């Protein structure tokens, strides 16, 4: 019965044979290698049976040498269903249209919901989203990913501390946290100020507390700079005389800025030859449809004749109802780049090294520190690189708070 298994796919025809001893026609077919089945004798001179669609031409050839009459009764199978289906064009068109319509509707933003922010900020977020093109009725694949929206919102609305964007089907949910200015707690408790680093004091601005060092003093790391115990020296002197007075010493929260000169040594390696990429500004945008692994170009077929390229790709997915379909739209921006290699002299390299080290140091110390370059302690050439040991002096605030233990 193997022969009849996939017969529906290839199609078959019921034929009717008329003539004297019609069953012999089927015997003839069998001799010629044509497979027939479900053969019935309906009357004395009539026989009917099924043959494969592919064998119809052979049947015709066989019939030509005989006296039988062959009639086709029923056509069955997929090829005939297809044929019938394509006769009804309006049906197909409307079916396609409806699928397309549902597809389109599934890729439209229906709602944007903003939560957890006060109405004023909500309005601003809404306006900002409108500028990005996110509003009910917008096509979803022109909008960036939720992550991108988050980034943009955070930079454009500084009042937002955090914003969470989630995409749930056709609605965007936004949840925001506002920045609230928390007033610094006034009562920080009694504390001293000690040195965070070793250095020579250049300037002191003490707003509360008793200074224990003077300008031009060399202080060590951890040394007491400003005391939170007012009249500490006095107490010490009087200690022997009246111990009970110690209880009376007044504790305050020391507040001061102590600018000191500190020293830093840093090591940098500067190569004499540098390669870096420069975008020329020439670019070409390509559009693709992605099916699993394959990229199907839909616009921008030509490859631009750039030697070196940098490709940026953006991808957006399509939805059908609530499902994500495995086709996505990819926009590639192919940019031409040049690799520029420059050679520097040793002097230039040293200069660049100093600048770089200064920049690195500034990054670590923050904007309040003033860095002045002192000198190059050590300089060495090695495998096309200049190794430098540099010496900097920095004016910075070395004040560090240290709470006074009240001993309870």
């Amino acid at each position, binding site marked *: 019965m193997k022969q009849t298994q996939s017969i529906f796919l290839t199609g078959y025809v019921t034929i009717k044979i008329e003539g004297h001893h019609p069953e012999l026609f*089927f015997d003839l077919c069998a001799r010629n290698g044509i497979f027939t*089945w479900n*053969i019935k004798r309906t009357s004395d001179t009539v026989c009917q049976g099924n043959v494969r669609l592919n064998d119809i031409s052979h049947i015709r050839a066989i019939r030509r040498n005989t006296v039988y009459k062959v009639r086709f009764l029923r056509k069955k199978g997929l090829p005939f269903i297809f044929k019938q289906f394509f006769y009804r064009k309006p049906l197909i068109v409307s079916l396609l249209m409806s699928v397309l319509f549902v597809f389109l509707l599934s890729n439209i933003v229906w709602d944007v919901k903003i939560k957890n922010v006060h109405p004023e900020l909500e309005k601003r977020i809404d306006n900002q989203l409108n500028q990005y093109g996110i509003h009910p009725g917008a096509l979803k694949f022109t909008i960036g990913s939720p992550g991108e929206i988050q980034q943009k919102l955070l930079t454009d609305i500084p009042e937002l501390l955090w914003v969470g964007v989630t995409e749930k089907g056709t609605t965007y949910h936004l949840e925001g946290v506002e920045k609230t200015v928390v007033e610094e707690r006034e009562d920080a408790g009694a504390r001293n100020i000690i040195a965070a680093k070793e250095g020579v004091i250049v300037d002191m601005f003490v707003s509360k507390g008793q200074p224990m060092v003077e300008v031009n003093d060399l202080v060590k790391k951890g040394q007491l700079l400003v005391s939170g115990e007012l009249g500490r020296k006095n107490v010490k002197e009087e200690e022997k005389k009246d111990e009970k007075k110690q209880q009376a010493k007044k504790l305050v929260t020391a507040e001061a800025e102590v600018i000191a000169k500190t020293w830093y040594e840093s090591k940098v390696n500067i190569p004499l030859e540098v390669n870096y990429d420069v975008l020329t500004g020439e670019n070409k945008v390509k559009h693709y449809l992605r099916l699993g692994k394959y990229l199907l170009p839909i616009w921008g077929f030509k490859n631009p004749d750039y030697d070196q390229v940098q490709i940026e790709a953006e991808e957006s997915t399509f939805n059908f109802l609530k499902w994500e379909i495995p086709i996505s739209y990819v926009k590639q921006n192919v940019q031409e780049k040049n690799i520029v290699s420059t050679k520097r002299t040793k002097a230039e390299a040293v200069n660049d090294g100093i600048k770089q080290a200064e920049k690195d140091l500034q990054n670590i110390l923050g904007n309040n520190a003033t860095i002045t370059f002192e000198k190059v302690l050590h300089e060495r050439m090695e495998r096309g690189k200049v190794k430098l040991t540099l010496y900097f002096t920095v004016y910075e605030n070395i004040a560090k708070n240290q709470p006074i233990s009240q001993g309870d």
Partner: protein
Amino acid sequence: MKIWRKHIGNWLAHHLELPSDVILELPRITTIGQLHAYIENHKGLLLFSDNELRLNMQYGYLKISGKDFVLKMMLPEEILLEGTISEIKFIDNENKER
């Protein structure tokens, strides 16, 4: 000559335990109750109607009778018959009964 060959074939089938349908070119008939009859190695269809099927064999013909006969499958040397089988009869050429 024919008889001689038949004897040799018989001897071979008997003593070498070879399947006799292959050696002697005889039809092999498999029936499932009254419902099906599967005939292999026949030599052509002679007659088929609602209640009778005749198949050619090397020596004579095979007659199957019953009712509601349908040929479920037909290949050059195989036939699957469906219906209600009541009788399977071998008829030799030499002593024709009809």
